[in-house]
């Protein structure tokens, strides 16, 4: 078991008390996680871990130092606090450091579901077996995961911040491989074990795999594409990492820089970060203990505002939206619960509207070629199909793309009505619909 939220808050407050500095903050993370991994239709790795750590941020004037430990005896905890203070005394002053944030009201809904208690090694193995069966009965092989994690995070500081909450997650992924070539993919993410249907998930992946055999070639070029939610979530992740944070915005490396109030994306696209909606998972406060605020990043295609933390809010004169990462943080504030507002189009209708295009189930190994334009390159994977005359026709071999995410979301022609919760970021998850894009640049193909 993890610490309870109350135990974690007590530990955080104790660390603050032990930190002899002008101001102090403690972040406690406690995790009890288990992951059952299968491949070639058998469980091949099956692991569990239990860990609790404390990270202390000490402030001396405008100097800051951080130290962390997972040794929780009194002497080790005190030594950790002393290391943070020693680092703070030596660090050069940051004239822009605004001090630690003062307490704000935080909603902490109960996001630990009791169904996890019974989702033990035996239950996870039975779930894996049920997934495997869907592939095995078709003569396919399945690989993937079934995992259950409960984590508790608490933050306290010397100004009175004192928050804590727990979150449970159940995640499963399935790759079904067809011996005739091709593969299919499906995933599940939720906060509870009792709304997870391994049979349905296994069937979904195997169905895609059954359609994927004998994939053919496709010339590189610009195509209309339908991106399934997993592929859209990848694009969202990179936009969050590259451009939706105040630090990148301030340094001029974000696609939002100089564009606030301007039309940046398709008018069909509204992107927000919202940790409070009941549809999502994760923490409702950030790693400074500040409430996460619903932040509209792009509204009807118009760039609105970046997410902030206490440092960047003060520095840029913006509100603190509550998106701090654990200190020290060279990335700046980050959105952890990105969502694209749902549209009203079914995926079937998107496909039906395409004369010639490509359907992408998900991407693989995406990376950044140009941060300002958010030019990404990566591969398609586990279900790439031609769309011809409004129908999914033949599978195609995996394609490489080199494409600006900003330009892609400026070419959105339809937004899916159904959204999927996609992880696995600890502390958050994306809510992504399928998208129909008029242009997507494929620049190569694998063998």
């Amino acid at each position: 078991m993890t610490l309870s939220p109350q135990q974690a808050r007590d530990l955080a407050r104790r660390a603050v008390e032990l930190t002899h500095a002008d101001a102090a903050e403690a972040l406690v993370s406690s995790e009890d996680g288990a992951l059952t991994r299968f491949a070639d239709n058998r469980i091949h790795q099956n692991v569990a871990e239990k860990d609790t750590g404390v990270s202390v941020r000490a402030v001396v004037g405008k100097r800051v130092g951080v130290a962390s430990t997972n040794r929780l005896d009194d002497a080790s905890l005190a030594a950790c606090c002393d290391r943070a203070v020693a680092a703070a005394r030596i660090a050069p002053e940051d004239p822009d450091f605004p001090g630690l944030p003062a307490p704000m009201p935080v909603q902490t809904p109960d996001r630990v579901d009791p169904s996890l208690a019974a989702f033990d090694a035996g239950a996870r193995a039975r779930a894996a077996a049920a997934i495997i069966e869907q592939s095995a009965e078709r003569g396919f092989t399945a690989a993937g995961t079934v995992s259950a994690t409960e984590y508790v995070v608490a933050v306290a500081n010397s100004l009175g911040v004192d928050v804590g909450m727990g979150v449970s997650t159940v995640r499963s992924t399935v790759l079904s491989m067809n011996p005739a070539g091709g593969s299919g993919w499906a995933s599940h993410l939720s906060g509870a074990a009792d709304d997870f249907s391994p049979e349905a998930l296994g069937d979904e992946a195997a169905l895609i795999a059954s359609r994927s055999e004998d994939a053919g070639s496709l010339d590189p070029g610009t195509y209309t594409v339908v991106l399934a939610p997993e592929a859209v979530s990848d694009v969202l992740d990179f936009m969050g990492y590259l451009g939706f944070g105040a630090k990148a915005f301030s340094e001029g490396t974000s696609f939002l820089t100089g564009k606030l109030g301007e039309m940046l994306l398709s008018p069909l696209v509204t992107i927000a970060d919202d940790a409070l909606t009941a549809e999502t998972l994760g923490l409702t406060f950030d790693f400074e203990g500040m409430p996460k605020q619903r932040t509209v990043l792009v509204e009807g295609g118009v760039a609105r505002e970046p997410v902030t933390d206490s440092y960047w809010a003060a520095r840029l004169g913006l509100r603190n939206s509550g998106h701090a990462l654990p200190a020290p943080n060279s990335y700046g504030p980050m959105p952890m619960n990105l969502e694209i507002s749902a549209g009203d189009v079914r995926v079937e209708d998107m496909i039906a509207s395409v004369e010639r295009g490509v359907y992408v189930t998900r991407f693989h190994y995406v990376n950044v070629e140009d941060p300002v334009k958010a030019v990404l390159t990566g591969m398609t994977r586990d279900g790439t199909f031609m769309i011809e005359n409004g129908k999914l026709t033949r599978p195609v071999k995996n394609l490489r793309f080199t494409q600006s995410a900003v330009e892609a979301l400026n070419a959105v022609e339809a937004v899916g009505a159904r959204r999927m919760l996609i992880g696995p970021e600890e502390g958050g998850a994306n809510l992504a619909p399928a998208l129909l894009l008029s242009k997507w640049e494929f620049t190569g193909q694998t063998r």
Partner: protein
Amino acid sequence: MRELVMRALEAAQTAGASYADARVVHTTEEHLSARNGLVDGIRAAESIGIGIRVIADGAWGFSATSILDAEEIVRTARQAVAIAKASALTLHAPIELSALGAYEDKWTGPCGIDPFTVSLEEKLGVLMAADAALRAEPAVKVSKGELDFLHVDKYFASTLGSYIEQSYWESGAGITAYAIADGEVLPRSYPNSHGGQAVQGGWETILALDLPGNAVRVAEEAAALVSAAACPATETTVIIDGSQIALQVHESVGHPTELDRVLGDEAAFAGTSFLTLGDLDTLRYGSEYVTITSDATIPGSLGTFAYDDEGVPAQRDFIITEGLFTGFQSSRESAPAIGRTSNGCMRADGWNRIPLVRMTTLSLEPGDWALADLIADTDDGIYFETNNSWSIDDRRLNFQFACEIGWEIKNGELGRMIKSPNYTGITPQFWNSCDAVCSRDHWQVWGLPNCGKGEPMQVAHVAHGAAPARFRNVQVGVGR
């Protein structure tokens, strides 16, 4: 610690394990970073715990805890056995491991000056001096530098009778200047990108890098990139510097030759491999100039140890021999699939992770060219330096890399600077197009401390020896 790991083994066997190993790992880390003249972060971190891996009812189980008391260790060992018994639900055949002896040993990696004894003031002095030199160039809009230090104490025991203690230090450093102009971000790094260079060793390795002394050149090159030419979209000859060759080896030789990937263990996450078991000793992976070794014995490399994390002694093995594919990287579980014993590549990212097949020091062996002669021997092409972006498909065939900087090669001489050049290819086709590798004078081991694999994710510290090499008929300027 010996008592703790032995207690774990005893508890696992009592609970029904037919095999068990246990590792206590204690890590101490320090990270310092500077950005734009300010200290971006000073962080010290410590972590300790025990991981217990067992075979019971013929299947694997693993459990780990950070609480190192006898009662918790017994609970954790029993949980590992219970997990293994649950795994047996889908068992095809009992796990069989390749043969291994019992070892009692102690190993310590090299370290001249323990970095944890060097004052924070001295470390910050180096970092801030380099940062100031970067910012002296007006075109540099963002400057960044970082120092990372790690000390690991590891205590391993197995029911084969081994007890092994290993201890090592790692030190890493890097600086980057970002010129930002006209909607472009143009980074230039030293001694490498993505955090710099990392080795096993102490503070002396950081001083040897002379970060402040190299910062002026780095900043000047970043500034020059603003007005550099774009990469042409064409097929041409490329010469690739050692640091980028290191990543090329990593992605297109290292991962596809991990035997667990070939057997499908990583299919759902990192992917599989284009290789099959039948390719061993038959596939022409590259040209005759391409020899790749897996070597866990190179002093000072991030890929070096005395024993891997299942107690197999460190080895040097040939993965590609003059172009012929001759070896996989393997483990005790995977090696029997090719009729061999483990070549010692099982490594875990800390106490709370199981060991996986990971690279050690996977190197392109040096050839006999001087770099100046190689450039002089090239009529038309591009010289690539320092990675900026990487991507490769799930079978490790179709790759695309972008670099920070390039130069045209015209009539045997370096010409115009090129910004953000990229190239793409298909793995065996690319390595078969290699017609020259530079000599040992140009060869060095590059540390790569951010190799991701496995679920839960593990980050391995691996390394690659490399020298500049030439490749023909390569597609460059993709999407430019």
